[in-house]
């Protein structure tokens, strides 16, 4: 987007009042989308977001300024604004910066530079709509959306690194509402990833729509969730939200460098049952959270977060790694050029254990089977988390019985992880549609998990009569 001469001048300007490090993040993002409602294509949307962010780091401090005006004058003003974090006064001669291009093997197709013909997207929505309505006359509303996004980032640093990444992202989502006898139930299913639209030639929209419709109908018939402490079995795939909230966020290095996380200073300590191993991986092919390089130009990595219950390491961006004497782990991510990078998760998952899912269910006397989660949130300093169950069932005497609606799980990260008493042999990734929010910034992530049993957790339903 900018030539190396302009990038170099911006970096020199950014450091002219001093500073340990500077980088320039250039972004161009194009998206193409359609929405369906009431059985018809409701509208189309296109978007272009482009701009440049300049950052200067001085010790623990960061100065930042962005511009969506790409004229050299406007960009130099941004570099000047970012430079003012270093008010040591005396202007410094930074000398010259020689940018060297870093080549990294891509994790996704880099050759596609445009969306497919409109008819391809519209066809997916219409097929999903037909399928969602096919089985059950109680389906009263289907809303579907498809989006195809291409993001280009160019990162230049004062250390001389220059790198470009070209990141595709496709999402197809289907939301279904079922209604009967004055009750409603809703279901949602979505998939995609860093792929092209032809992914749905083999992962059919019908399959997604049928799932969303099934969940809506199940929730329509569901009883209110129980309230109180009980055993919980977390379903393979989407259950990975548990790892993301209960452990993952607490291992992001900004919280740990600042000492605000309950995991601060605990590398090497036991923080979970020894059945628990957790990885975060930016290197998985085509997953939502995969990044050939992160938003600071560091290649994505496979990180061991917890190994057999022992805390092994944090997810590092460059600022916090520098201050903690660690190496960056390719975890520096940002929503867009308008934001400073933060240490973030990529794809967080637990590998398979020994038990079969059938054994795990059969061993549960009274509990909740949380097949998938709609999302979750965590409080970092004490580790309390919640999850909203998207599809849940009671387990009674070793058997999955009635569906329950509106279950929320509340617990504490280390406490819940210590109570992991069985890990299934069926690890898999969830369908690709999760987005993580932190400090007002949203980035795509992946989660994965085998079937896991937690011996005791608080289920926050409304039915305390059981």
């Amino acid at each position, binding site marked *: 987007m900018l030539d190396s001469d302009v990038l170099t001048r911006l970096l020199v300007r950014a450091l002219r009042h001093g500073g340990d490090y500077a980088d320039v993040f250039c972004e161009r993002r194009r998206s*193409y989308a*359609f929405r369906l409602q*009431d059985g*018809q*294509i*409701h*509208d*189309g*949307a*296109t*978007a*272009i*977001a*482009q*701009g440049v962010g300049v950052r200067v780091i001085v010790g*623990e*401090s960061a*100065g*930042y*300024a*962005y*511009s*969506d*005006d790409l004229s050299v004058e406007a960009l130099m003003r941004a570099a000047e*604004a970012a430079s*003012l974090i270093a008010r040591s006064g005396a202007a410094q001669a930074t000398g010259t910066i020689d940018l060297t291009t870093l080549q990294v093997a891509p994790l996704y197709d880099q050759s596609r530079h445009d969306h497919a013909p*409109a*008819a391809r997207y519209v066809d997916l929505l219409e097929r999903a709509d037909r399928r969602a309505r096919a089985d059950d006359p109680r389906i009263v*509303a289907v809303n579907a959306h498809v989006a195809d996004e291409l993001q280009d980032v160019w990162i230049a640093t004062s250390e001389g690194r220059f790198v470009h990444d070209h990141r595709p992202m496709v999402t197809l989502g289907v939301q279904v*509402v079922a209604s009967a006898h004055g009750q*409603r*139930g*809703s279901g949602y299913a979505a998939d995609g990833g860093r792929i092209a639209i032809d992914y749905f030639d083999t992962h059919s929209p019908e399959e997604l729509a049928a799932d969303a419709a099934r969940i809506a109908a199940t929730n329509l018939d569901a009883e209110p969730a129980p*309230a109180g*402490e009980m055993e919980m079995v977390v379903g393979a795939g989407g259950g990975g939200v548990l790892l993301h909230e209960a452990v993952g966020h607490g291992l992001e290095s900004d919280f740990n460098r*600042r*000492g*605000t996380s*309950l995991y601060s200073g605990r590398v090497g300590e036991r923080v979970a049952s020894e059945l628990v191993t957790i990885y975060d991986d930016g290197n998985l092919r085509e997953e939502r959270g995969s990044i050939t390089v992160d938003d600071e130009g560091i290649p994505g990595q496979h990180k061991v977060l917890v190994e057999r219950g022992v805390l092994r390491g944090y997810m590092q961006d460059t600022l916090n790694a520098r201050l903690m004497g660690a190496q960056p782990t390719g975890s520096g991510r940002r929503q867009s050029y*308008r934001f400073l990078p933060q240490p973030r998760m990529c794809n967080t998952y637990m590998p398979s254990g020994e038990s079969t899912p059938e054994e795990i269910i059969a061993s549960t006397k009274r509990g909740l089977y949380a097949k998938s989660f*709609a*999302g979750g*949130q965590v*409080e*970092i*300093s*004490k580790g*309390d*988390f*919640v*999850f*909203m169950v998207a599809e849940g069932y009671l387990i009674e005497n070793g058997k999955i019985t009635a569906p329950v609606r*509106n279950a929320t799980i*509340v617990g*504490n990260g280390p406490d819940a992880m210590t109570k992991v008493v069985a890990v299934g042999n069926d690890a898999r990734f969830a369908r690709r549609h999760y987005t993580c929010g932190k400090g007002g910034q949203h980035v795509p992530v992946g989660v994965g998990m085998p079937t896991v049993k937690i011996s005791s957790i*608080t289920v*926050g*339903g*409304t039915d*305390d009569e059981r």
Partner: protein
Amino acid sequence: MTNDDALEVATRAVDLAIEAGAEHAEASFSIAARFHVEARGAAVSKLERSTGSSMHVRLWRDRRHATVSTSDLTAQALRASFLGALDQLRYVAQDPYAELPDEFGAFTGDLALVDPTIVVREEAEKIEDALALERSIRAADPRIINSSGSHYSDANATIALANSAGFRGVYTASRASRSTGPVAEDHGAKRTAHYGTAGRVLHDLETPDAIGAVAARRAVEMFGARKPSTMRVPVIFERDVAAAVVDDIFSAVAASNVAVGNSWLADRVGERIGSHLVTIIDDGTLPARLGSAPFDGEGVPTRRTSVFENGVLRTFLYDSYYARKMGARTTGNSTGGAIGANNFYLVPGDGSLADLVAATRRGVLVLDTIGFATEHATGSYSRGARGFMIENGELAYPIDEFTVAGNFADMLAGVDAVANDLRFDGSTVSPSFRVAEMTISGN
């Protein structure tokens, strides 16, 4: 950029869209100068200062509709985007309701959306605000030795809207906010809290000392918190938590959700939903409030709308598209493609939060919640929470790691006391209120 310049950018985009082949077009252009400082301890940890703009264009042809958002404002790029959108229209269904609004205009009273003291405020003073917050939380209690950051931020924005029916509107607005996140430590245990404020008038904001005192108290008062037992009791929602509940109610009255089956309030206009204490207003014409503006996102004058009156649902909130589709009149709640709140608030009652607590024999005060996935289709509510157990009208002990759950219909019907502590620090706000009975899940 002057108001005239901003309006010129929007008008030119409308002209380009028509030239490209749109029958009707509307362009909204905004440009904002934003400042943010974060302090930790005695140091500035982040300093951000930028000017950013955005352009949103809606195009119609043959009763079909598409949108373009772009930060590339060159004529060539705009033209290419518009041609792409017009191509998309070939696949969009004809929709008899898809067109520009029938009415345009602006509220003519003085909305006082700009505070000149924010516009000219010295950067050093802004930085001092953040540093003062850091000092105040640490002075408040010796157990506060860390923080996740103290913040001052402000923005000065110009918003221009033009359409092919001849509407031209432009206004400027300022805002500022202060917030802090103290971390208290006691024998290795950590507790955090967050508290802050925002508004259009700098002088009206709570001071750094006042904010720091509240935040510090909220962090340390949670030490020794227990997990409560599972029970059904009266629940008091403190105003910030209450505001989040009111925000969920906004989603359920937004016509865009009602129309697609995604609201538990669908088909219930005219019914008594809440107790007589539930009166909820949307008002875009309150002077100097964050949700105020002379016109909405499609050039319709803002107004005051009673959504619930003494518990009775009077109307949903509409933009012109959903108004036409559902046989109603727009309420001036368009964001230019979606439906948004102006100032959407529960009308306050008498007495303070302390009075509410004192009048509760046994119950739970909720001070903070986590979680967000409200099912608007079913109206079910469930959150992780922390707060206090109330016994004999007093705060007995702190509690955490529990959930508070119910459904919105029962919650609104069960509102049996509303406090007088409303503040307009956002566009969906509420005073503290009490619900007669909800489910607390714990041990």
